[in-house]
């Protein structure tokens, strides 16, 4: 019997023990995320990338800014959610998404999207199933180098994002997502990205997770081809969840 996996598992349990004993504050306020991973696929090799995100979560709105770097481009994104209508079972709001891609060679892409966002919640209060569907329109402007200068053209197309999260415990959840874009890669219509992931709140201020995404080519004409696999691990840090020592 190999000892290494057993020892690693035991060490993980030990590291989680203090977290299991504490009360979990709600995940509001500032959030910082670090992520790393790679894109791969048949004949693609391995393309590493890294990203950093900073966000702020309030009761009715969320803002998130992020930057990622890969082998061919630097990408920046901004998300803003506003959910003025919130009931126990559903939410209704708006989302805006902006993406800017600067190719390391030359040229750029910008994406500006607006969405109507519908959220649904079902199941037990402590382990709910939460779904969110964003439907909207994207405007893509692509700049390319032509004869020594940068020219550009503009396109419009429908865009969507669906996310289903199931809490398994108070600390852990799994999720499935199907989206026509991700925050740092916005293909043309309709090349969806399917993702599954899980995260676990190991401490009140720290959440760890992993995600696998499959990127498809043109699914609208029914000749889709899985032309990329993205593996991602991430750590979310919530400074506002750090417990302050009680005064004597």
């Amino acid at each position, binding site marked *: 019997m190999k000892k290494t996996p057993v020892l690693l598992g035991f060490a993980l349990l030990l590291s989680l023990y203090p977290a299991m004993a504490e009360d979990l504050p709600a995940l509001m306020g500032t959030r910082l995320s670090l992520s790393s991973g790679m894109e791969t696929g048949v004949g693609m090799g391995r393309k590493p990338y890294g990203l950093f995100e900073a966000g702020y979560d309030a009761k009715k709105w969320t803002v998130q800014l992020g930057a990622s770097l890969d082998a061919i481009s630097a990408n920046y994104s901004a998300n803003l959610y506003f959910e003025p209508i919130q009931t126990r079972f559903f939410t209704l709001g708006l989302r805006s998404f902006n993406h800017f891609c600067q190719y390391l060679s030359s*040229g750029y892409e910008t994406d500006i999207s607006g969405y109507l966002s519908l959220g649904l919640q079902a199941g037990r209060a402590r382990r709910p199933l939460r779904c969110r569907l964003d439907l909207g329109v994207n405007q893509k402007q*692509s700049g390319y180098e032509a004869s020594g200068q940068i020219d550009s053209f503009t*396109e419009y*197309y429908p865009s969507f994002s669906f996310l289903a999260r199931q809490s398994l415990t108070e600390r852990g959840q799994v999720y499935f997502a199907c989206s026509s874009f991700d925050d740092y890669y916005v293909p*043309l219509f309709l090349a969806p990205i399917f993702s599954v992931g899980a995260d676990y709140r190991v401490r009140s201020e720290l959440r760890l997770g992993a995600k696998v995404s499959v990127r498809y*080519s043109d*699914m609208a004409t*029914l000749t889709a*081809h899985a032309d990329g696999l993205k593996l991602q691990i991430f750590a979310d840090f919530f400074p506002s969840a750090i417990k302050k020592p009680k005064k004597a």
Partner: protein
Amino acid sequence: MKALLPAALAMSLGFAALSSCDFGIYELFGRPNDVITRAASLTEVAAPSVANTQRYTFAIITDPHFGMSSVYYFPESEFFNSVTEASADKPEFLLVLGDVTNTGVKAEYQDFADFAQRFTEACGIPYYAVAGNHDLYNDGWTTWAQTVNPGTSFYRFALGRRSFYFLDTGNGTLGDPQLEKLSAEMNADANRKLVFTHYPLFGGISFSYFKLTNSRERKALIDLFNANSVDMYFAGHWHDGAFYDYSCFKEEVLSAFYATKSRPGRWFFATVDEGSHTLSLKTYAVESASGGTAVSTQEFSLKN
């Protein structure tokens, strides 16, 4: 358990309905022989015989969609006559830019093979094709490779100092391996170039559909064409046709061969003149069996 029975029944009926769809929708998440397999290497094929590599003409048709010919008007005789009756700049070969079938089944490939045989007998010139998305339905690639010339969709030939590149975009993407091989081959090729495939890059179409879906791949192609003396990029797929001038090269999205009530069937003669550095594109349009053939001509400059 009671809830599972109707769910299972509904899923079975749904699957049966999807499976019976003509386009083989049960292969929604991946079809056999994807672009990675099909475009594993760039094939050098024998060039067509032309009398003068300084000036020659070739015909182009796209999206004939054999299998739909009973629904739409198919201007076969008008097309054959335009080739055989051409007095000057008679086409010396034909290019077919994909979707030779509608659903990729063998009967439709046989219809195309019969058409190609009639064309060869009537006009006496060879044809070359690339695969379109419709050709891949129902595992159509297996029949494509056996039936359609030259049996691959990623290939090249040269006429004088000009190379003709044919790309496989049947899945709506080149895929990284094909793109890397294409980059290596184009970078090592000093010839002027023309590129032929099924999917448009952009085509001046503001609605983002009927195009290559990976915008990074599109960007890489524009850069590659800009750096490697590509004069024109010819595509089909968008049946109404479109055009875009990238400054460094031009994209001509050609209209479909068959005619509908709202759109004439079209075919094209392209004349390359290396002496005057021009490409003349003559468009033939037929609306119905009783209508005449309208002809118009555009001229594009080629790089020195």
